[in-house]
């Protein structure tokens, strides 16, 4: 997406900010750009827009830019920004909202591997009710086609006897599946 500086005055569009306030209860309109959030963010240097700029982009109604940003996927919801924001803005909760919306809209994501990992993790819970690391990592490797990076780590854990071979299933798996049907599957159409 082109994001060019222009000498045209920027027209602010409050509808996106209002949508976020409505959906999350987070008063993004209170941000006064002090940058405290960004200074404490552990991954700001790997983001295309650091957290304070996310607030500014919301203010400008730049929905498309945000939904296709790297930022929303790099955020690890550590909540440091929220803990330190003088205006109690829960940026992490806004990131959750933006990731969900980007996924629901099927937007091409610059950090596909992170999105995929969240999806594979969720779908692993849908299959067993609990997380089974071996099948989860296998599904991630197959779908991301990222076969070689970090295989050493998985192998180390496996050799330490820390990755059980067989999954254990929840007895009330139908209840877990129903939760998925009413949430995840509904939003992402059963496949994401």
């Amino acid at each position: 997406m082109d994001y060019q500086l222009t000498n045209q005055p920027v027209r602010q569009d409050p509808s996106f900010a209002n949508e976020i306030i409505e959906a999350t209860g987070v008063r993004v309109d209170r941000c006064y750009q002090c940058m405290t959030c960004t200074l404490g963010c552990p991954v700001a240097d790997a983001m295309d827009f650091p957290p304070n700029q996310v607030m500014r982009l919301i203010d400008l109604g730049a929905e498309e830019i945000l939904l296709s940003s790297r930022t929303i996927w790099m955020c690890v919801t550590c909540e440091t920004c929220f803990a330190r924001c003088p205006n109690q803005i829960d940026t992490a909760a806004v990131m959750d909202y933006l990731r969900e919306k980007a996924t629901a809209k099927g937007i091409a994501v610059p950090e596909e591997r992170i999105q995929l990992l969240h999806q594979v993790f969720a779908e692993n819970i849908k299959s067993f009710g609990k997380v089974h690391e071996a099948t989860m990592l296998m599904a991630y490797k197959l779908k991301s086609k990222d076969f070689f990076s970090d295989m050493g780590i998985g192998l180390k854990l496996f050799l330490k006897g820390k990755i059980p071979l067989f999954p254990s299933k929840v007895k009330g798996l139908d209840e877990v599946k129903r939760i998925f049907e009413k949430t995840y599957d509904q939003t992402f159409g059963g496949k994401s």
Partner: protein
Amino acid sequence: MKFSYYPGCTVHSTAIEYARSIDAVVAALGVELAEIEDWNCCGAAAAHSIHRKLGLALPARNISQAQKQTHLSPDLVTSCPGCFNALKRADYALRNDEETRKEIEETVGFAYNGEVRIRSLMEVLTHELGEEVLSAKVKRPLDRLKLVCYYGCALVRPHAVTGLENPENPMMMDNLMKWMGADVRDWSYKTECCGADLALTHGDMVQKIVGRLIDHAREAGAEAVVTSCGLCQANLDMRQTGTDPLPVFYFTELMGVAMDLPNRKGWWSKHIVNPGPLLARLGYES
């Protein structure tokens, strides 16, 4: 003292040494943790990161399970900060936001009664047993062990939800380790993030974050790091580079050393950075 218990998925896998040391410590303290029937994964960070309502409904099913099992204590203890955080977030939403409560109740199929109290194992041990009881159990004070306490994110933030102490400078684990006699060093990085799940997709970034944390731990004079979080432990344990990595303990493991509990070899063998040599040099292991 009896509590109901939510162990979480990692006690059977990546945090198995945590589980073993927890069992040993609570047995020695006369604390009973009764596992709730048929719990499911809390959703960890992944569920809410991709679907907010799923991230509330998965932990809410566990609250529903605990609520049904009225023969168990209403204090639902969990040892994993990630699970604690997810359960607390769901409980916070159910307790304080009526519209969300109705949606989650409908999704999970239960009626929330607010009686289950979500608590962390560390908080329960420090508050319910306290200094007098715990320090009386110490057989070998850890005074030769220089430590920094690493809390990470999930146990403390967001503060309104977790309700635990000062989110910038928690002292619970520092106090607990001092009661065990340890030489606890002050440092400014106790609640910094370890990089969390990025370890699986962006290993190089997490390596940098961990490297910084370990540098600061060394600067504070620490020879080891102690934590309660399986993800923090795994990232710090596996992502250090260099020839002289610091061992990364679970707090219950060090309680086990101070209380001289048996079968500790089965804990150390699960670590990537073997704590054996350090503990032997200090005279805590042969």
